[in-house]
């Protein structure tokens, strides 16, 4: 039996004016288990807290019920007071008789009655309270960043800067991501490489950062502070230590017909390649699908020319096991596949290109050396049509996306402007539905494209693009003039919607991080915790969480780093004390609870049990990781046998409250 003290607060006149506090204290004093009761003007004051502490000591109380303001106000205050007096802080229950009683009622009789009922419910619950201790778990002081684009780079640099070790896992042979493929950046028009490559070099030179390029995360186990990650380093067939990145092999390789994915297949590379001049790490990689030596065993030119002796045709994938305290997802985006958009003739004509392909064509390091030439015949286009919202803002039943891809309006304005600047004789048409330019200096940028560069912005959508005699006949509507247009364009550029990288979905499953229907990672709270996943210890950086431009990505990446640093800075994590816990003897092992847990806190293990009939039995039972459980209680209701219960809000506690209220 508990020894309970009841403390009724007046809150000045806030409570006492509508609730007869003395009557409440006396009525509750008659409840079973109550050995002490008192009322006081301000329970939360120093003096009030001392009254609680003294009563706990003098009357050997095992628990306290405080009838006062909302637990959201002073629960912690009273818990600390209880702990200071030597009882467990979870042996305190609050009856909310201010916000939920005295402030909403005028009639003193009914308000007093209600306050007594609320007090009784709190006492009934407290009878079933048990001391709780929050667990602790250690933190591995190293972070993993998955994805080496600008988001991953920035996050890694910031974490390293705070003095923690960071590993970047990048599936491509080099870090840099989409930004390395871009020519110029809006709205300042500085060159992407000029601002990105110094950061890449910083990453390479940082003592705190390790880069696992050409590698993928294969499995993730563990929980916040203690993740075990398997990383597969794919075989490059080149010794990373020996290779100096001189590039001789990439010039001598006789296999020249390999589609260059860095240039989106617009030109060809060799079977051994370095994606671009500033690649980090600058190590050659052999494309096993095209290498004659690997396919037929006959060639070996690269091995012969390599003075460092770095070529190793027998190299195999290796799997590393690493430990991390935090994991950052920075898997980024890709433009969607446009092959299904027959009306835009993307598959039919090489002169219908995506905006990312346009970036490569205008990039000085790209397939055309930066000269704007048509992919089909290498001539200068004189009439270019840009089509916005291709695959964005659709109704979701087609092949497109329901969301706005956010970046297309700005990069299209940039493309249009740059084209007009370099080639003033080129007519540029932009077909738009809406021009969306919220951002610092963004609208000014778009207006410059129209006002200074004379780009034709036409409100309307392109209905059909048909290749005819080397031209692209673009049929479109001009909604403002009320006219249908037919433009004989030389080049059509489609602003393709962007979607999360395909690797994100399986990764989310490994991390037990939740995703929305578009495969963007869900944030822990859409407004207040935008860079954390609901799964503790998993953080989100860049476009994996939603479409973003570079400034936003970098801002989010740094915010994400701050959260990671905050976590890694702790030596130990205090877990939530009110966690779910299964009664193993009742557990059916049916896996129902596991499915509703938003945090992946529940796992199953086979355990040997001594049964009441003295036999032993191996049973599959649920096990909750208290470091991961956040205490929502979804599992407790999913469990048919009642094996799963929640500390602090147990089935019996809640039912005791129900009973006290309904009595």
């Amino acid at each position, binding site marked *: 039996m508990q020894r309970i003290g009841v403390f009724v607060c007046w809150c000045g006149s806030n409570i006492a004016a509508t609730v007869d506090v003395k009557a409440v204290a006396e009525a509750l004093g008659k409840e079973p288990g109550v050995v002490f009761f008192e009322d006081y003007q301000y329970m939360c004051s120093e003096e009030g807290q001392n009254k609680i502490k003294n009563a706990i000591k003098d009357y050997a109380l095992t628990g306290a019920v405080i009838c006062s303001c*909302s*637990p*959201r106000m002073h629960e912690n205050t009273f818990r600390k007071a209880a702990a200071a007096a030597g009882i467990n802080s979870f042996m305190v229950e609050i009856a*909310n008789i*201010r*916000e*939920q*009683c005295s*402030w*909403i*009622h*005028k*009639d003193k009789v*009914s*308000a007093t*009655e*209600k306050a007594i*009922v*609320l007090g009784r*419910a709190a006492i009934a619950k407290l009878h079933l309270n048990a001391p709780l201790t929050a667990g602790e778990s250690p933190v591995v002081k190293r972070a993993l960043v998955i994805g080496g684009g600008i988001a991953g780079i920035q996050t890694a640099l910031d974490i390293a800067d705070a003095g923690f070790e960071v590993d970047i896992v990048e599936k491509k042979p080099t870090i840099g991501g989409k930004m390395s493929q871009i020519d110029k950046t809006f709205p300042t028009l500085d060159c992407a490489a000029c601002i990105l490559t110094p950061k890449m070099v910083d990453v390479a030179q940082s003592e705190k950062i390790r880069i696992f390029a050409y590698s993928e995360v294969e499995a993730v186990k563990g929980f916040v502070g203690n993740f075990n990650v398997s990383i597969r380093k794919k075989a490059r067939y080149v010794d990373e230590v020996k290779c100096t990145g001189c590039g001789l092999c990439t010039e001598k390789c006789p296999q020249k017909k390999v589609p260059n994915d860095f240039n989106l297949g617009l030109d060809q590379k060799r079977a051994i390649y370095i994606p671009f001049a500033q690649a980090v790490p600058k190590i050659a990689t052999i494309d096993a699908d095209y290498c004659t030596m690997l396919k037929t065993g006959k060639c070996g030119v690269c091995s012969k020319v390599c003075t460092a002796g770095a070529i190793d045709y027998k190299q195999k994938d290796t799997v590393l096991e690493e430990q991390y305290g935090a994991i950052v997802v920075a898997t980024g985006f890709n433009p969607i596949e446009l092959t299904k958009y027959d009306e835009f003739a993307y598959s039919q004509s090489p002169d219908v290109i995506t905006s990312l392909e346009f970036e490569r064509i205008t990039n000085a390091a790209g397939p055309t050396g930066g000269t704007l030439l048509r992919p089909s015949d290498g001539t200068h286009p004189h009439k270019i049509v840009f089509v916005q919202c291709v695959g964005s803002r659709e109704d979701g039943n087609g092949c497109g996306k329901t969301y706005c891809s956010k970046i297309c309006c700005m990069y299209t304005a940039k493309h249009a402007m740059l084209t007009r600047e370099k080639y003033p004789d080129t007519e540029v048409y932009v077909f738009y539905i809406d021009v969306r330019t919220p951002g610092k200096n963004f609208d000014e940028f778009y207006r410059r494209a129209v006002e200074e560069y004379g780009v034709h912005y036409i409100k309307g959508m392109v209905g059909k693009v048909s290749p005819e005699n080397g031209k692209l006949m673009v049929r479109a509507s001009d909604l403002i003039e009320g006219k249908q247009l037919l433009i004989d364009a030389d080049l059509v550029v489609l602003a393709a919607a962007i979607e999360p990288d395909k690797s994100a979905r399986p990764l989310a499953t490994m991390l037990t991080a*939740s995703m929305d229907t578009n495969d963007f990672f*869900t944030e*822990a*709270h*859409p407004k207040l915790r935008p860079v954390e996943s*609901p799964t503790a210890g998993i953080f989100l950086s860049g476009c994996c969480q939603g479409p973003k431009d570079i400034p936003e990505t970098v801002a989010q990446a740094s915010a994400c780093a701050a959260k990671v640093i905050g976590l890694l800075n702790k030596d130990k994590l205090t877990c939530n004390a*009110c966690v779910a816990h299964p009664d193993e003897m009742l557990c059916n092992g049916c896996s129902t609870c596991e499915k*509703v847990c*938003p945090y992946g806190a529940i796992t199953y293990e086979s355990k040997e049990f001594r049964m009441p009939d003295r036999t032993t039995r191996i049973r599959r039972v649920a096990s909750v990781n208290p470091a991961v459980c*956040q*205490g*929502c*209680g*979804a599992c*407790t*209701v*999913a469990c048919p046998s009642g094996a799963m219960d*929640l500390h602090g*809000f147990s*089935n019996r506690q*809640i*039912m005791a*409250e*129900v*009973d006290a*209220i*309904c*009595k």
Partner: protein
Amino acid sequence: MQIEEKFEPTIVAFCCNWCSYAGADLSGTNRLQYPANVKIIRVPCSCRVNPMFILRAFQRGADGVILCGCHPGDCHYTTGNYYARRRMTLLFSMLDFLGIERERTRLEWVSAAEGAKFAATMNDFVETVTRLGKNRRLEDLRCNK
């Protein structure tokens, strides 16, 4: 003249800690009145509410039970209220199927900012349940009087 005593229903309101309980607090802070019949039980999340609790309340004499949680999509635990919604939809539909007045059960989404909505919801709910009168059917379901 005989004064007929007004029926005062017992109403149990389960409120999730993060949105609805805070919404209830806010209606207090704003001094928005609702009847004292409503007694609130704090739960971490609407998904913590077991159908057993609701039946238990009716069994022990409650005349109406209302469950309040964060708006869909705003759950502190991201998905709890979606599960709660399915569970309550099925449970309430079942009670209706057994012939229990459907107005005695309710699920409402109340955010921490919706103090006014909380008070209005409670006023409406108390009024509805008062009109229905004492909850006898669940009690009487088996007693073929």
